[in-house]
Every structure is written in C-alpha cells, then in structure tokens.
C-alpha cells in the first residue's frame, strides 16, 4: 500500500497518454459490456418468462390454423386450469400501410387478465368490459401513434366485416403495459364477442386459448392433459408455456454467439496491441528513473510489480468505467430486445477480463524494467 503514491505518480508522468489509454480501455469494455449484456440479458429474460401461463394452439400450425371456439368448455374442465380465455389475432394498419398494429381480440369475462401478462388499471378494465367497440392500447403503441383515452380510431384490418368493408373503428378506453418479453409491441386489445360477430369469415374460430394454471408447478402436467384430451380429434392441440415459447423465439439470439465472440476477440486484440506498445514506450522513456529506483534498493521483483500495478490500476478503472457506461447504454438496446438489464455476472466477468488484459499487456514491459542493468541504465543507455 505504501507504494501507491509511486504507482500513482508513474501513471501521471504523462497525463495525456494515461488518459488516452484509460479512454481506450473504457471504450473496449463498454462494447464488451453491451454485447455480453445482450447475450446474458436474453437468457435472463427467458428465465423470467412465465411458466404458469399456457397457450393452446393448433398442432397443425401454431400460426395459421384456427381452433373452434367450442373447445373452450372442454379446456376449462381439465383439472388445474384456473382461467381459460379465447384469443383471436388479426393484423391491421392505421392511416398508412406502414403503420402496422396487431389486434388481439379477447373475451373479457370473469378474471380474464389472470391468463395474460398485461397490467391494466382497474378503471380501464371496467370501461373495457362495458362497451362493445372498446379498445385498450399497449403503452408503446399509444406513444408511437399518439392515441389517447377517448379517441375514436379507424383501423384498416386484414379481416373483412360482414358488409365486405375492411374498415373498422374502435374507441380507446385505456392504456396497458405488458411484462412478457415475447409480446407484440404495437398491439391493442378488443372484445372477441364483438369482433367475431362483426367479421364476415372464420366465424366461431380462435387463434389460441390463453390459460392460467392454479399451480405453476403443474404447468407441464396441465399442458399434457389438454393435448391428450384432443389427441386423435379433428382439432389436435399443442400446448406450451410462455417460457417455452420465449425459449424458442430467443434461440435466434444464440446464433449471434459466434458473432459476439468474434467482435469481442477483435476488440481485445486491438486493445492488447495498443496498450503493450504504449507501456513498452513508457518503460523506455523512464529508463533513467527506473535505474534510480533500483539504485535506491528496489529489487527486480519490486520494479516488475510496480509496473504491473500501474497497468492493473489503469485497466481496472477503465474497465469499471466502460462497464458503467454499458449499463447506461443497454436500456437503448432494449428497444430491440425487450426486458434487458445488465446482469451482475457480466460486470464481474468484465473486471476479471480487465485484470487479465492488464497482466498480458504489462508483462513484457514490466519484465524489461525488471531486467534493467542499473549501471548502464544510469549511464544513459535505454532498455533494449
């Protein structure tokens, strides 16, 4: 500890150079933090997805094949099913073809919100149940299109009404938020009974059923029981939890592992080279000073440690600064991947990596300094 002032003055011998190295280390570790945080954050988001909410869709094709509404009573009778709500999906646009909006039609009956990941304030919830053309808007969609409670919104849907028109209109009665990582961003909730009655085709069908199970541990068991009930019928089902679905949709990120590793590798190679050169240069310039230090009785080992400590201090400070920066930046990346945060493990990993890089890049210059022959160095010859 008593050598700390020595290390400190060594660092500030050339402030410009030290600050530039510090910035370079910060930038490299900010990038490391964002990339690694993205990867680890996605894994965390999947783990946080609800395992107690199940989705029942058609075994034929989970996207395109409808299920009859009539399955609802049979699903509700399966032990462990607490709430089951039919859900129909449709796509639409608002004003312009590139302003897409997802329509989620649900039956607002009983305790229906339990089967969803949505958070809806009670007054909005009450208003939604009262009117047939009521619409709840996800916060992100409300922000994007500037919709407010009380607005009457005309939408162009891919679903025709009975009079053949694709123009629909709904009244905004509230705003809601969604905690699910895989949920649509720009979505609205409308009433299924009204939607189904008003549309021309596919009446009496739904895209899937949302189910809340009474005990999260029973999730898999209930899913299997539902699928078993409809096995060999004309409407075979496939039931999955939100967590399983999140796993499937986030797999794509797994393909980025290679890319992330390659980028981090390139960053570290460039950083190592730059800092090693700088440290060697620094030791060269300080040859006379180091010789004096040795003359005063510092051993080769102590000089080695002195140079190493300088690098450690600089790198750990730089890495910490960079990771702090990454923590600030990561919420912006959450625009693309919902539910991201900087996991503590990434910070630990980053600091450990900082120490490793410091050791590798300081080893050569520190060894040069340690092996400095005192007499020739004092005489003005530089370290080889």
């Amino acid at each position, binding site marked *: 500890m008593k050598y700390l002032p020595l290390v400190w003055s060594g660092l500030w011998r050339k402030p*410009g*150079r030290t600050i*530039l*190295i510090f*910035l*370079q280390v910060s*930038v*490299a570790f*900010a*990038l490391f933090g964002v*990339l690694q945080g993205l990867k680890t954050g996605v894994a965390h988001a999947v783990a946080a997805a609800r395992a107690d909410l199940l989705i029942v869709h058609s075994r*034929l*094709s*989970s*996207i*395109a*094949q409808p299920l009859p509404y009539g399955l609802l009573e049979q699903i509700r009778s399966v032990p462990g099913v607490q709430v089951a709500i039919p859900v129909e999906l*449709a*796509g*639409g*646009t608002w004003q312009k*073809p*590139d302003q*897409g909006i997802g329509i989620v039609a649900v039956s607002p009956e009983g305790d229906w919100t339990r089967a969803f990941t949505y958070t809806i304030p009670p007054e909005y919830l009450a208003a939604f149940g009262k009117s047939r053309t009521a619409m709840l808007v996800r916060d992100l969609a409300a922000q994007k299109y500037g919709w407010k409670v009380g607005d009457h919104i005309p939408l*162009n*849907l*891919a679903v*025709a009404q009975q009079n*053949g028109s*694709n123009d629909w209109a709904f009244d905004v009665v509230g705003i809601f938020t969604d905690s699910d990582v895989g949920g649509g961003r720009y979505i609205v909730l409308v009433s299924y009974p009204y939607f189904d009655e008003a549309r021309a*085709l596919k009446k009496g069908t739904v895209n899937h059923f949302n189910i809340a199970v009474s005990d999260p541990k029973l999730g898999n068991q209930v899913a299997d029981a539902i699928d078993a009930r409809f096995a060999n019928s*004309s409407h*075979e089902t496939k039931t999955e939890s939100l967590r399983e679905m999140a796993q*499937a949709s986030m*797999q*794509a*990120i797994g*393909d*980025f592992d290679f*890319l992330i590793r*390659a*980028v981090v590798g*390139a*960053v570290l*190679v*460039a*950083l190592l*080279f*730059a800092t090693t*050169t*700088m440290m*060697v*240069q620094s030791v060269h310039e300080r040859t006379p000073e180091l010789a004096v230090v040795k003359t005063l009785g510092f051993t080769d080992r102590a000089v080695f440690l002195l140079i190493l400590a300088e690098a450690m201090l600089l790198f750990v400070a730089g890495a910490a600064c960079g990771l702090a920066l990454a923590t600030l930046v990561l919420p912006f990346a959450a625009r*693309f991947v919902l539910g991201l945060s900087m996991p503590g493990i990434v910070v630990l990993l980053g600091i450990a990596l900082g120490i490793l890089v410091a050791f590798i890049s300081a080893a050569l210059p520190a060894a040069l300094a340690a092996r400095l022959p005192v007499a020739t160095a004092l005489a003005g010859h530089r370290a080889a």
Partner: protein
Amino acid sequence: MNFMRQFLALLRMSLSGILRRPGSALTIIIGVTCAVGVLVSMLAMGSGARRQVLAGVREDHVVVNSHGARGIQSSIPRDEADTVRDLPGIKKGKDGKPLVEFQSVVPIEARRRVTDRRVFFPLVGITGAPTDNDPDLHLTEGRVYRPGLDELIASHPCVRQFTGFEIGDKRSIGGVDWTIVGHFSQGDSQLCVVLADAETLMAVFHNNAYTQATATVQSAADYSVLQHALESNPTLHLEVRHERETREEGIRQLNALLNFAAYFVGSIMAIGATLGAVNSLYSIVDSRRREIATLRAIGFGSAPVGAAILCESIVLALPGALLGVLLAWALFQRMSVSPFGFSFLLDVTPRLAVIGVLWALAMGLFGGLLPAWRATRVPVTTALRAT
C-alpha cells in the same frame, strides 16, 4: 507552391521513418484493421440478407394481396381470384391464358438438423406448374408433385438444414401424410421453400381463399392499367405492388436492425482505434521534437509540418482499411448464417469495401488532428536545447 514542396519533403521524411517506429505504426494499423473488419463483416449480414430476399426478383412481376395485409394475413377468396384472372394488363402466355399464379401459404414447423431447434418455413401451394412462374427453379431430383395427391417438393436448403426432407420422407401436415417426391434448386437462395399443389393443400386445410397472387405484366403502362382495374372494381379488396417493393418491405425491418448493430459496434470500435492512433501519433511527434524544431529553424513553416503529420496518420490508416476488408472477405464471404431462424449468405460487396475505406480515412483524419496541432506548436528554441 512553397507549402506543397515543404509538405512533400516532410511527408517523405516521416514515411521513411515509419520502419524505425514499428510499434506505433502497427498499433494504428491493427486498430484500424479490427474496426474496419468488424464493421464490414457485420454490414455484410445486412447486404447478404437483402441480396437473398431480392434474388430472383423480376421487374415484370407484380404481387396482388388483400388491401393493407402483409404476408400470410392476406387472403384472396376464390370468386375474387376469378375476377383477377380476367383483369386487363396481365400478360398472356403462349397458350393465351393470363400469366397469374395464385399461392396458398401455410407456415409449418421443422426441426434443425444440427440443433434440433424448431423453425418455421412456408409451405406454398401454387396453381399451375412450378416452373411456369419462376424460370430459376430447376428440379434436380425426383419428380414434380401430382395434383390431387398429397405430394411435396422441397428446395435444397430444406434438405441441408432440416430433418425429414429426403425423397420418400413423409410429413404430417394438416392431419394428412405428405410425401416428398422431388428436390429443386432456386438460384443460390438459402431459403427453405416447400411447394405443393394449391388446390390439394387448400382442400386439406378447408381453406377457401388463396393467400396472394403473382402476375406478369408486359410494361409499366400495363401495370397502371392493372392497378386502375383493381382499384376501380368495387367487388375486389385487393392491391397490387411490384414484386421488388413487397420484398424490400419484408426485409426493411431486419435490415434496419442489422445495420444499426453494425454501425453501433463499428463506431465504438472506431473510437477505440482512433484513441490508439492519437496516442501513437503523440509519441511519434514527441520523439521527433528536435527534428521538427530543426526543420522549423531552417525555414519550414508550421502548416506543412502539421499537414505532414495528418497525412501520415491517414496513410497509416489505409493499409489497416484494406487489411480489414480483406480479412472480412476471406473469413466471411458466402458464409451461411441464420440469425432469427432465417438463413442467408454473408455478402461482402464492393460498396461495403468503400464504406470500410471511408471509415478508416475518418479514423486517420480524427486521430491525426490533435497530434498534428501539437507538432505545429513545438517551441523551436526549447526543443532544440533539450537533450
């Protein structure tokens, strides 16, 4: 004129000195190489995805789908389809029939060969023979499906990436066992496409509407005629767009995401490389203080001294740029990647190489500014006296 002569003399001097300072020069070159290499390889994903989606687009092809709908949400009921066949503007084939292909698209699941992961791909039921509408499509093995039988043909990427697409394999789709009877290739697309007869597929799925239609038009004038005919017919709820436009729209979001990621990572790495360059150039300037002071004393101006340092920085960045582009090309050109469950080949285009070089020039320029300024400020008398 005097400025140019001094500048060139100084530049020649500093460049001949590079070999005496290999560490500093290499720091700049390696930093720039890494930054440019990463930027170009990441941009190659966006350009590869775009190239794949736009492969085989024909300028005389137009796509008809229901108003405002995208992808599988579109639907064209049979009665509307009959009207579409007779619309003016659509080119007639040799047999006098209009060149229109209706498609019924059903997304189905498959398992990755290597990872056993689930992916979705389109099963496309088409009217007419598979080669009618797509001249790039070549049957390489087996035969074409027979209408009325539950038979499929699959493209090569399906066989390569997924299980269950060998000839003779059966797949259960819509509660019916379908047999794979043929394989086809489609240019160098990495997209898994499975084709079947539209009527057979729609019968299995109890579907009474096609998803979309592709038609051939003779000229731009015919396109307007067709568009007008579609819009003025009150019984139709359809819209027509050029095939290129629909494909571009489909890839826009993915492209924006990939390009954002590329420029985000590329910029951060460029900042790192620039900082490294500044540091190296500072030490180059410092080690040449006496030399610079001597030159100033014998009459060289400060402007040519600064310009020569700036130019040296840019000259050092250039080999880094070329190396970076070369590395990206050698390592990743035509490598197959599949982020988001959608496979395509990376494509390092000349345009990306130019972007990489410009990027490197910017790094060299910004990295050289401060050291160049310092070089112009070397105090002649004190620097000459220093040991």
